[in-house]
């Protein structure tokens, strides 16, 4: 509404119109209309929205905590895996060297095995035996009187390391077998120490 200047009304020194005297105002409650009621902002939705925002923030915080924890766990597991890989490689190397033909032949003959140079066959279809059937001579082997002539410096190194290890295992053997039953401890006490898993070969 436009307030048209009424020059007949008294004007205050600063030019502000002074309201004419009115009767005392009585507070009247204004009931909101239906449209106004529907338009009013609801606290419920506000709570939900804000609550959701906080929940998201808290969830993010928790997740990043879990991820950081996981990172530490990953780091420990990775270094465990590296150590196990190193051990696996070392054991595999040892097995490969112990499995070399030089070692197998010398060890087999050290155990007293013999080789039969003559060939004979049995035909399973009719039981016929062909070829030269003769028993192996005692002491006949593949290695021969010169000993093994095909060098393997890794084998020599491992045998030396095993011999050195065997010397130190014997005194501590009785203390390290505390997890074993007493019977195995006493039985192993007089035999060659085998706590390391592979029997130590006598160096040739």
């Amino acid at each position, binding site marked *: 509404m436009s307030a048209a200047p009424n020059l007949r009304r008294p004007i205050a020194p600063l030019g502000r119109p002074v309201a004419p005297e009115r009767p005392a105002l009585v507070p009247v409650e204004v009931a909101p209309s239906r449209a106004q009621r529907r338009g009013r902002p609801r606290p419920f939705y506000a709570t939900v929205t804000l609550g959701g925002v906080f929940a998201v923030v808290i969830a993010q915080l928790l997740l990043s905590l879990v991820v950081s924890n996981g*990172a530490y766990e990953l780091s420990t597991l990775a270094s465990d895996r590296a150590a196990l890989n190193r051990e696996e490689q070392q054991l595999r*190397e040892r097995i490969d060297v112990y*499995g070399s033909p030089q070692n197998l032949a010398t060890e087999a003959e050290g155990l007293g095995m013999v080789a039969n*140079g003559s*060939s004979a066959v049995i035909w399973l279809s009719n039981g016929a035996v062909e070829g030269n059937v*003769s028993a192996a001579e005692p002491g006949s082997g593949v290695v021969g009187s010169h000993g093994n002539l095909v060098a*393997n*410096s890794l084998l020599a190194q491992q045998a030396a390391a095993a011999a050195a290890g065997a010397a130190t295992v014997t005194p501590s053997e009785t203390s390290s077998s505390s997890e074993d039953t007493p019977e195995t401890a006493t039985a192993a006490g007089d035999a060659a120490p085998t706590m390391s898993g592979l029997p130590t070969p006598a160096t040739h």
Partner: protein
Amino acid sequence: MRYPARTRGRLVLALVVVLALVGVFVVRLVDLQVVRAADLSEQAAGRRGVESTVYGQRGEIADTNGIALADSVMRYDLKVDPANAEDKTTRVDGEKIVTTRDELLAQIAAITGGDAAEYARTIDERLADDPDANFANLAKNLDVDAYNAINDLGIGWVGWDTVPSRTYPLGAVAGNLVGFMGTDGAQTGLELMYDETCLGASNGTETYERSPDGVRLPGSAVTTDPAEDGGTLKLTIDSDLQWFVQQRLSEYALSLGAQWGAAAVVRVADGHIMAMADYPSVDPNDVGSVGTDALGSRAFSTPVEPGSVMKMPAAATLLDENVADPYTRVETPGSWTVNGGTINDWWPHDTIPLTLTGILMNSSNTGTSILSDKVDVQTRWQHFVDFGFGQKTAVDFSGESAGLIGSSGASWDGLTKYLVTFGQGMSATVAQIAGAYQALGNDGVKMPLTLVEGCEWADGTVTETPDATGTRVMESQSSVELRGMLESVVNEGYASSYFDIPGYNVSAKTGTGEVAIDGAYTAERTLSVAGVAPSENPEYAVVVTYYRPANSKASSSVAEPFSKIMSQVLQTYRVPTSTVDPVGYPTTW
């Protein structure tokens, strides 16, 4: 519409606040992006992350059964921080114990087998050069045991460099074939031959961000360069048989006093090499322990004048050209003068009646020369070339020699054309002889001599597979007859008491080649025996050769190692024993 004054004021206020905030952000943005940009980029570059090497693994060399002959392993170089190398102080039961730097070095030396005084010297020299030095190398190529032991000592100023390395678990078994690695890569043998096409690996790099306490930040790993592993090189060699052949070869080389020896075992059906042995052999783990001339494979690289083992392809020529058969009769003189030279048999005799079988059984040079005269030189030369002489074998081993057979039949002079029929005046490697006898054993069909089965990659593909096309170099009938004649060499010849392969018919030929030194033939000899078994249906060819044996000049001494090796081969591969009698062609008339 116009808002009441109060509302307008609030609106203006809000606008002013918002604009102020925007202004602050704009100033900050300009500050970061424009004013301090270069400075911040530099800081960020410094903290981009840790780059770590992802090692590609060099391919394995494996025998035909998958047993590793050469394997890739990690070794560790020990390094120290000289500037911070100081005494260690620990508390045990409340008591302070000080371990001096030199005592710690002594502990390290006890593990590595090095010299503690030398370690101390290395550190002091480094510090003398540069008092802030952070790096000095103490020991190289330590294995996992040493790594764990030194870590257990708990010394703060040692560190490690990981070094991919090579190990040869079987030692000298096939050592001459496998080759070895040096400081700048593969040096010789299969390691060098297949370095680029199969075995070689390349390292990759991986970048990740790290927290101050050394933990990888999750999700920050970026592989900038993938590592590539090498493929597994699968050989035709059987490592157990290879050891046996090397062992026997070495034993007899010692008792014969030979300068060197070589032996080959070839499967006749496909030309695959089951064993190729050299004496002296080399352990690739310990290359420095033998002379440089033992580092390659003489079986491939060193040709010799083979002697009478060449009577086999010479006789094959006669049979193929239909100028002779096992019954052909020749009045064989003890010596034959022709074209200004004299050809002698190894034993002095008057003219005797021999069949071709008898000529081979007694290894008569004159008989072979007289019969060979019936075929023109070019045809004879061509037959020898067909058998593989004068060219490298299909293996093309590192340093392999093609031997000498002359450029054509016409290149043979009046005497050489007879000499070549008994293996003089030409040269061949043990590999070439093995290839020729493979053709004899395979019914006349020569297969390419093969050492490598293929290169197997992690994804299952196989590359470097060998050529498997055979060529017929001799009639099948000729092969049958020739094997029948060579049975007589084993059963009735002058070396028959030395051949001992019970249960099988064996076709073999002895050879005693004269060695020429400085252009003149000497009393030195190259002794060989080459043969196939079982004669009626051969499966394997074996060749054994000794160069300049001091203790024997007779090739019959090689019949014993040949027999042992052939017996072992036939037993290993479960070859059925012979059920037919030897052919027994007449040797005289």
